[in-house]
């Protein structure tokens, strides 16, 4: 049980990643695939946060001299996640705009039917 408790964020993160990946793999509606990618992104972000997270840790700010750095959560992953989120948003936006164009061209979002480029 303690394993679950200790690693709950990791489990959650990888759960999200797997869900996202599975969505990408299994679904053939483009929007759902994009959603899957988004979920995966979220999972990754969670994973990164979890790396730096300390249970009962404080914010990594030296607000007063007595704050011990050992109790602070790691600030670097948070910075990373901020960047990653930005990138994820950019990709999502691009993906959705492409999806719109794709629908205009093909009249469908079913990836099984969008197979003009192959071999």
């Amino acid at each position, binding site marked *: 049980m303690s394993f679950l408790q200790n690693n709950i964020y990791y489990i959650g993160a990888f759960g999200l990643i797997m869900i996202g990946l599975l969505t990408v793999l299994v679904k053939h509606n483009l929007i759902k695939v994009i959603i899957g*990618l988004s979920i995966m992104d979220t999972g990754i972000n969670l994973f*990164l946060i979890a790396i730096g997270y300390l249970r009962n840790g404080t914010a990594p700010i030296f607000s007063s001299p007595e704050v011990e750095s050992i109790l602070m959560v790691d600030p*670097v992953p948070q910075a990373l996640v901020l960047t990653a989120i930005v*990138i994820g948003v950019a990709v999502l936006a691009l993906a959705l705009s*492409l999806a719109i164009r794709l629908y205009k*061209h093909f009249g469908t979002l079913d990836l099984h039917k969008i197979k*003009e*480029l192959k071999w």
Partner: protein
Amino acid sequence: MVNPVLLIAVPLGLAFMVPLIDSASRKLTRFVPVAALLFNLILCIRLIPAVLENPIVINLGGFTPPFGINLFVGPLGLLFAGLISLAGLVVSIYSLSYIKNGPVVKYHMLYMLLLTGATGVVLTGDLFNLFVFFEILCISSYALVAYHGDRAGIESSIKYLIQGTVGSGLLLIGIGFIYGIFGTLNMADIAMKIATVEQSTLFVPMILMVAGLGVESAIFPLNAWLPDAHSSAPSSISAILSGIAIEVGLYAVARIVFTVFGISDIYLFFAFLGILTLLIGEMCAFAQSNIKRMLAYSSIGQIGLILFALALATNNTVTGGLFQLVNHTFSKGLLFLSAGYMIYRSGSMEISSLNGMGKRMPLTSLAFTVGAFSLVGLPPFAGFPGKFLIVSGALLKGEMVINILVGLVLLSTVIEGTYFFRVIQALYFKDGNGEQRKQAPATAVTAMIALMILIVALGVYPKFLADFLSSASSDLLDKMSYVGSVLK
């Protein structure tokens, strides 16, 4: 001494200046990339003597590594940066006339972003920074692939995007693991600490990172986006994607594997992977009737060859691999650029529609021929020294397995030759429709001639590049000096 940061800062800044410049003067827009890349090229050349002496390490924001983000401008990085600026310059000259319709401003902006990302990847010394630049590279290439907004472009772009995003997600997970294990993102720092951790722990992050970067660098099972994207992008972008983007991916893989992990047990596996990529790429190209797809698959093959060369991890093979890489950038760029105008003239990408192009566009056809010969590795073009070095380096290892792999390399060269010669025959010796002779525009011709001269010069006097490549290869292979020069 000039600051190498400018290599990234100037194109990045100018990229965002493009809309502003466009609003000021519509004509000037097209020349922004030319100017920026010319600047970069000159910068690179000026940096060469200094870099050959000692790698330049720039600490951004004044934080010393391992805490801050640093740029590492070694011979290898500089080689790539120079290559990117050179190829970028040539392609931007080509684009002056080639890109006329559509959102031109965005094209130039994205184009420069792409090159900024590429330059960043090769210069950075920080894993996450690498990821960020990588994403810049990827996102701008997703958008550029879809530049024409036609069916094929959009379709390939979305496919590219899905795979690329999955790949960068994997990369990010890998980086997360690494950070979790070492608590640092500086590559030199990680490299130094790597021996303290048990090998098997590192396997998962490594394979995740390799897979993530492998998607961009088109290693065999991860390269499905490439033929689509390269074939449906505008030819100038195909040239850049083929000549720069996947090479940069390969650089990242090599950097991670050699410098960061540096565990030699796995090299042979990469050699196998390289050969597999090579064979599959060449065979798929062999079966193509669409010229751009053929060229795209051929890029996969070349990447496999370069990967094989790098994976053998001796000074000779890596030098050969880098030579081949340079050659591939030039030749494939030349091929895509010349094919671009031929397709433009004939209106179809089928090889059969290029019949008799030699009469209609002699110079463009000549450029294609030179590119093809060079890529196949015929002397006196640039492909031969590279192939010679790779094979001699590989045989010098004297292992039976590697000798067999070399045999496969030579075999795949024959396949490669076959499909290129087929196209050349179509260009010159088959009768096409009797259209009038009309050359490509002057800017495109300039670009192609520049590449041709480079290819022939490299082929005739390979020593010109050999010394530099040799120090680049030691930069890649010599992990300790990398660590030492970063961490002082």
